[in-house]
């Protein structure tokens, strides 16, 4: 059943496009899309463009995670830091991060730093918030027990606080990676001249629809692989936590 419905939909699409019930110009049959995908990898630059998107994603994710996790932990443990930083996060978190792109392009010029940073900012807020929540929602009894057994300072942090917050941190990283991918692809669609997002845009403009759907499917596969992969990794690494939830 899990495979039957997607396969059935694809077969239906193939049939309708072949019989020209739907316009094959706008909705090319899946077989032509997959041919275009294979051609793109073997003869075209699809592999290269995928790599461009993945590189941007990796840089954005690293740029976000490295400051966000310590900041979230610090905010959770030091009240004045939390008080001082929280207003900015509360105001900026619900803002569409793509709206920051023009500002970054003015500051840094139209180029990689602005594109990558837009993705990084998208992930940064999510990771900070999740990490903070991880520290704030930890069972206070754990802290008491740790203290009673003489854990203090660095030891209390590495043995009690960090392990307790780790599931939330991991969830934040996973959600952050997904948000960074969304932002990077959107930036490519809007402003960049390379990457999978740009491919969708370019093939849309030239109406080379098989290639357009190919790039589109590739983005979907990438998103699925990253989110599902990380969730599986999370379940394996953090066996003591509850189900990480589906969103």
């Amino acid at each position, binding site marked *: 059943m899990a495979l039957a419905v997607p396969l059935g939909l694809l077969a239906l699409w193939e049939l309708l496009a072949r019989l020209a019930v739907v316009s094959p110009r706008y909705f090319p049959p899946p077989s032509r899309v997959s041919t275009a995908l294979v051609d793109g990898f073997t003869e075209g630059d699809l592999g290269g463009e995928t790599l461009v998107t993945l590189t941007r994603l990796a840089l954005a994710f690293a740029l976000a995670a490295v400051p966000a996790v310590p900041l979230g932990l610090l905010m959770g443990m030091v009240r004045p830091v939390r008080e001082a*930083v929280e*207003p900015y996060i509360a105001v900026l978190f619900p803002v569409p991060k793509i709206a*920051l792109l023009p500002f970054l392009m003015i500051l840094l010029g139209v180029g990689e730093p602005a594109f990558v940073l837009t993705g990084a900012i998208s992930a940064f807020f999510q990771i900070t918030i999740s990490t903070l929540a991880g520290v704030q929602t930890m069972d206070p009894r754990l802290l008491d027990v740790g203290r009673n057994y003489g854990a203090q300072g660095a030891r209390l942090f590495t043995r009690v606080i960090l392990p307790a917050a780790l599931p939330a941190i991991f969830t934040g990283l996973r959600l952050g990676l997904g948000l960074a991918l969304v932002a990077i692809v*959107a930036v490519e669609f809007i402003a960049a001249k390379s990457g999978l997002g740009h491919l969708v845009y370019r093939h849309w403009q030239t109406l080379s629809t098989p290639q357009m759907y190919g790039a589109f499917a590739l983005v979907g596969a990438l998103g*699925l692989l990253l*989110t599902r992969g990380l969730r599986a990794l999370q379940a394996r690494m953090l066996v003591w936590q509850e189900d990480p939830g589906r969103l």
Partner: protein
Amino acid sequence: MSRRPGWLAQHWLAVASPVALLIGWEVASAVGLLREAFFPRPSTVLIHLRRLVTDGTLLAHALPTLSRIGGAFALAAILGVATGLAMGLWRRLREGLDPVFAVIYPIPSVLFLPLVSFLVPRGETALIVTTAATSFFLVAFTTTEGVRQIDPLVVEAARHYGARGRRLFTAVLLPGALPFILTGLRLGLGYALIVVVAVEIVSASRGLGALLWLSWQVLKVEDMYATFLVIAALGAVLSYGLAVLRARLLPWAQDVAER
């Protein structure tokens, strides 16, 4: 944020830090430490915001954005709740649609624009349908979860007391799933704003996203900041306003996203 005495004494940093930042920014731009071309003074931005409001520019761009968000949200809410309820109730439908949704959901909504523009007339309809896409999945997912997490004992008890069909649905299943549905709606509304701005940047001549982009293209930096301020305010109103509304409507249920 209660106003009881002592709140300010307790949270003075939360007030002082933004105020200090704004004053520092103002001074730094005024004395030339920050380039005013890139970082206009907050007071200059406010003057430009006022001008945008009084000459009607802001309204002319905010109204299309609001109506698109409204249309997309209504579309996503109706279709999402219906799909989610159906998926929660019928296992076969859920198992069939799950893999389809799993592939489509992580795709950034703005990429749907080409596809949607083949399906429906270009222009307003395409913008609204594209904006609705991601919100629809969020609402459908959370609604499905909402139905599935209802305690089977409750359903069984209702059945024993003779509730079935429509009655079982309105008296047990819908209220049981409601906290999840409202969380999905809240997240979906937030997403509608995120997507509408991106979609307007790509293919609209009106709307807050378009205004931001046009201001960038002609390097009206002050207008960019002013527009950003409006978008940020809209984001705050949509996400925190709905959270407050939710707390009022469902005082017994914690927000699912905060668990």
